């Protein structure tokens, strides 16, 4: 910073130098001040290099295999319905979806490709929906969601802040656009009950969304963004909203809709009756319904196993390549012991 100060104060006339001290001013000896603390100094000897690569390979390949096996065990049914659920005679899909007078019930039949063990997770998947859009992700107010007394706190909620001068609860674009397609399932001919409890994080229900905060002035604007909330149920129990408000990281995402606690057999058919309400037609979004089992690794995901296998394989290859190199061009460590003679000169 200011080096002149140090010099100035030590040399200057501010008279703290005093009489010359006769005692030795030799700095105290310690391993620390002499920078001689005991230290370990690893060097990459061939032995080390090869062992590290081998070790990584040995660990990674089994993990890769296990991950692939786990991923293969997952049975997943994905059904994209956004196009199929619009009658083929409709040309303006946007007008169709915005017209609230038309019934948009749609029926889909799904075939179970393999046995599915309960619990079966029901997700809806949106493509091209940027829940991480800057404008969108900021448009919420967490104080209002938690605290009934802060209902009028709507900062950052633009452009969905107030309706006729009254604060909207929950305010903001995120809450406004809560997904509102609904699904009911029939297994073969029986109704298949879907459990919609505990689909959101417990921490969110307990601490983030107040049990005494009720929706107000919500979804009353000229443009309906999505789900309408029951004004008699507190926010902490509006689990669809809570799930939706955990904004997704990527533009293609799934959100948990519910769970089915029934085992499904191969070739069973499932009939889904759905209300196709949510507007993804204005921006080329896709909507899919996903039924999936789960393993210790989560859902279907081949990438992780493949990545582990690739990296493990690469390390085996490197171990091999380095072994070859060391054999072809051996250099005993410290071969330049007579350093002063053999030290190489640069330029």
């Amino acid at each position, binding site marked *: *910073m*200011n080096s002149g*100060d140090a010099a*100035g*104060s030590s*040399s200057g*006339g501010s008279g703290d130098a005093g009489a010359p001290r006769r005692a030795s001013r030799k*700095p105290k000896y310690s391993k620390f001040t*002499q*920078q*001689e*603390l*005991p*230290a*370990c*100094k690893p*060097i990459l000897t061939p032995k080390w*290099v090869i062992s590290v690569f081998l070790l990584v390979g040995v660990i990674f390949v089994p993990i890769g295999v296990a991950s692939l096996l786990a991923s293969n065990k997952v049975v997943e049914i994905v059904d994209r319905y956004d196009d199929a659920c619009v009658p083929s005679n409709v040309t303006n899909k946007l007008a169709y979806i*915005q017209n609230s007078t038309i019934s948009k019930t749609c029926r889909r039949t799904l075939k179970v490709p393999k046995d599915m063990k309960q619990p079966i997770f029901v997700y809806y998947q949106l493509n091209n929906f*940027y829940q*991480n*859009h*800057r*404008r*969108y992700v900021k448009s*919420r107010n967490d*104080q209002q969601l*938690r605290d009934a007394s802060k209902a009028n706190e709507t900062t950052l909620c*633009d*452009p969905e802040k107030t309706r006729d001068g009254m604060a909207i609860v929950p305010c903001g*674009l995120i809450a*406004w*656009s809560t997904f509102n397609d609904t699904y009911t399932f029939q297994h073969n001919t029986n109704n298949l009950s879907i459990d919609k409890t505990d689909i959101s994080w417990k*921490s969110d229900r307990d*601490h*983030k969304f107040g049990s005494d905060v009720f929706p107000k002035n919500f979804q009353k604007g000229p*443009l309906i963004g999505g789900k309408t909330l029951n004004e008699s149920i507190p926010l902490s129990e509006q689990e669809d909203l809570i799930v939706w408000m*955990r*904004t*997704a990281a990527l*533009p293609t995402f*799934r*959100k948990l809709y519910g769970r089915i606690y029934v085992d499904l057999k191969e070739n069973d058919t499932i009939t889904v009756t759905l209300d196709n309400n949510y507007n993804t037609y*204005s921006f080329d979004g896709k909507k899919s319904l996903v039924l999936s089992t789960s393993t210790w690794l*989560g859902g279907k*995901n081949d*990438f*992780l196993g493949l990545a582990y296998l690739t990296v493990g394989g690469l390390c085996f290859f*490197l171990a091999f390549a*380095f072994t070859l190199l*060391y054999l072809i*061009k051996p250099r005993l*460590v*410290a*071969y*330049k*012991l007579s*350093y002063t003679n053999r*030290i190489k*000169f640069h330029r």
Partner: protein
Amino acid sequence: PGPFRPSRRDQPDPSASERELHEGGEYRAVAVGEPSPEFAGNAVRTAKYSALTFLPRNLFEQFRRLSYVYFLAITVLNQLPQVAVFGRGASVLPLAFVLFVTAVKDAYEDIRRHRSDRRENNRLAAVLAPQTAGEYLPKKWKHIRVGDVVRVASNETLPADMVLLATSDPTGLAHVQTVNLDGETNLKTRYAKQETQLSFSHDGHVAGMLHCERPNRNIYGFQANLEIDGKRVSLGPSNIVLRGCELKNTTWAIGVVVYAGKETKVMLNNSGPPSKRSRLETQLNRETVILSIMLIGMCITASVLAGIWLLNHQRELEFTQFFREKDYTTGKNYNYYGIGMQIFVTFLMAVIVYQVIIPISLYISMELVRLGQAYFMGADNDLYDESSRSRFQCRALNINEDLGQIKYVFSDKTGTLTENKMEFMCASIHGVDYSSGKPACGSSVVVDDLLWTPKMAVRTDPQLLKLLNNDSSNEEAKLVLEFFLALAACNTIVPLVLDTRDPKQKLIDYQGESPDEQALAYAAASYGIVLVERTSGYVVIDVLGDRQRFDILGLHEFDSDRKRMSVIVGCPDKTVKLYVKGADSSMFGIINKSLELDNVRATEAHLHKYSSLGLRTLVVGMRELSQPEFEEWQLAYEKASTAVLGRGNLLRSIAANVECNIHILGASGIEDKLQDGVPEAIESLRQAGMKVWILTGDKQETAISIGYSCKLLTNDMTQIVINNNSKESCKRSLEEALARTKEHRVASSIGSPYPVLASESSGTVLALIVDGNSLVYILETELQEELFKVATECSVVLCCRVAPLQKAGIVALIKNRTDDMTLAIGDGANDVSMIQMADVGVGINGQEGGQAVMASDFSMGQFRFLVPLLLVHGHWNYQRMGYMILYNFYKNATFVLVLFWYVLYTSFTLTTAITEWSSLLYTVLYTSLPTIVVGILDKDLSKSTLLAYPKLYGSGQRNEKYNLNLFVLNMLEALWQSLVVFYIPYFAYRQSTIGMSSLGDLWALASVIVVNMQLAMDIIRWNWIIHVFVWGTIAATVICLFVIDSIWVLPGYGAIYHIMGQGLFWLLLLIIVVTAMVPHFAIKAFSEHFVPSDIQIGREIEKFEALNQVLSVDSYYQ
């Protein structure tokens, strides 16, 4: 007064000096005893700030750094609502933190200064109360004013610059120690004028009017006159005592304050050394520019892509839920101003988000690292000099790392290579050489029944002693006596009488400013001519047991033009003699050669012999002045010495007039002993690839002989000597020299494949010896280009008889023409210009005073410390700092690139998944501490290895640890690692329920672990402190993430708990870290094994040599 005390004629020309002062318009009139409020008071203020001004002034000072302005601009930008990326509080945090830390440090320093100011200002001094006669009352220093008469007792510090009026010594003598002023510990003598001394002893007070020059910085100059009792008395530098000095060996002294407070010479000189910037810091600017271009590139990419996205989706914006253009309460667009504006806003936001790519923390890290390095250099036992009790001192805190890149070392000779403790070795008297010295017991003098012995005895020549003691009537003996009388009288030495344990014994300590004079006075004493007492008017010399008083009628001080000094002495036998001593070149010009040619020739031969032995020579001469001659001189001398302005020139011309027709008495040879370990140190420096140049004021023969004795010159070298007196001949000899170097290069390059090392490998080496006279014609003319060419071809360069400014000129010759780093080392005032000119200036705490140290960047006690300083600390500092800068660039680039990749998946809207707090803490906390600790503590090689293989120093000279290639490599690693950190989780979590905060936490944690692992992989020595900081930082990051995700009001509440509960998270973390590190590890393994650097080989030797000592070297080379 003695018979020759000049009777003061009434006012030679009363108005002359008055007029001189008026013409300059630069004088101040001080009435003695009347405090004048007109001039600055004596309160000093070294503190910069007061409580009120601290904030604005400190901020102003801090914002003088351009980088801070950049960060401020970014912070201000972030306050605009349209652009705001971070919350307001969060964005201010890093800059505020940096400013705060610096402000606290400044405030602490300033409080210390305030305290010392207060202590200083409230000290008490005895001040003459006005309108009283001789009543001294205690007064605080800050209340002392110009004109006050102050009484100071022994060992007290002087409160202001004062003209001495009277002292406890009847002759008006006072001794002061100026250690606070210039670092010199020897005592200096100051005089009160006889007139004031007398007046004081008569009346008890002094009244008069004093005219002196305006305050200035010159410690060694002062001109004034004092009107007292109608007489005008001239005052010079020997009549003033300066603030900060201590009175010694004088019971009391009384003086009138002439300069007070901030106008005192010590305060005017109170400025630090010129600020230098380190090479690395300059190079760092280039990389900063590259990074700025990268930054702008990224911002343009993001904003253009955002524009394209908007263009493609222009018609969908209203009904798209995540955009919803309109605010229905107003019916207008919300925060959307058309594509053009949107691109611009995105660009600004991108600048804010990606600004960290230019690391703000780097600057503060560098400061901290340098502080730490400076601490360790100061604490190094190997840099402590027991004899002068001086530690290594880092005076400039910003060029530590330059010590590792030095290519040229310019060294002063006297006091730097040599001890500057002179020892009288031999004398040539009247053409006879007496040089067979035998250790002698020295002679003592009996004064008042006490035995006074000189502190040091020199070796005496028995023949000479015999001559002196036995037949004093003989002509030869008379000449010898004159010779020693000249040595004893013709100097400025003050004998101090010290007590010893034996009450009957006293020691005479000769104090003086020139070590040569001290040596000569001790020599004279050993031969029985003992200087016993000196006052301003006379000296008492014990001549072979007979105490005699010699009046000093006039003294012409030494100056570097005349290169000699002389005294005019009134002898007890009523004759007036002029004694002169000086350098041979100046003396032979004024010698009356016609009289005694043989004598002169013999002396010249002896001088030649002495200087080829490496001795310093002085020629002594005398002349008896006739009465008219004396009177003429006296008139002129009186007149000149009462002049206030231009006195120096007047005195010089009078000296030149009187110093002529000198009768040569003889010459002396003084040994200038080499310091410990100088030849070895020079050898090490040369092995380390540094060129050592010696710049000395000595004559050619002495310089060459010192060159031999410190092994810079060897017998197998070819010497090229340039020693000319005209420009043409200089040109000719330079051309010849150039031709010879070419010849030499051709001859040697045949045998050697390495052209640069040709001179090393082929037996003969060139040495260039240039003389100051020739340099006059070479420096700053077109010839200096030629000199540069010749000098760089030679491996040894000696410059002799160079003036201080020429020293700087030679340094500039190299500094301006090459990129190589220069270091200048010296101990004297004549080295100051060279020390300030060189990239690195090193001062030696030596005998020649503290000016070199004051001007230097580093100071230490011995020349040989240069080796550990450069080879060990310099090497460490350079490699640590180089690595730290690169690492800081790398780690911030990695982080910024991770942020950048995410933007590609947010429709280019600069959302960051990583919370803003983590983004800000990333540079401040998550990654900064380990680099600082590693920058202070890591060492690539141990001290002993570095000292054993000086060639390892070449790593710094070749810029091996910081260059564009390494920067590019680091950036490529940052690119790879950011891709790994970003895309592995991206692919793993594609089409999943992952939330933004959870993924953000994974990215943040993975980045931190990866960059810390990179550091861990590059650390060479793991001691416990480094372990604590590296692993502790990762732990601290995890803790911070937990804390941030425990704040319910943030959207990320609970995210880290959920994601850490999944197996997938841990598997991802493992594969990210391993995949990110594989290339770095493979490159490291490959290069360390197949293209090892010198340092790598050194490390292997260090680690395995101990293990493999049993095996012979040859077995490694099958």
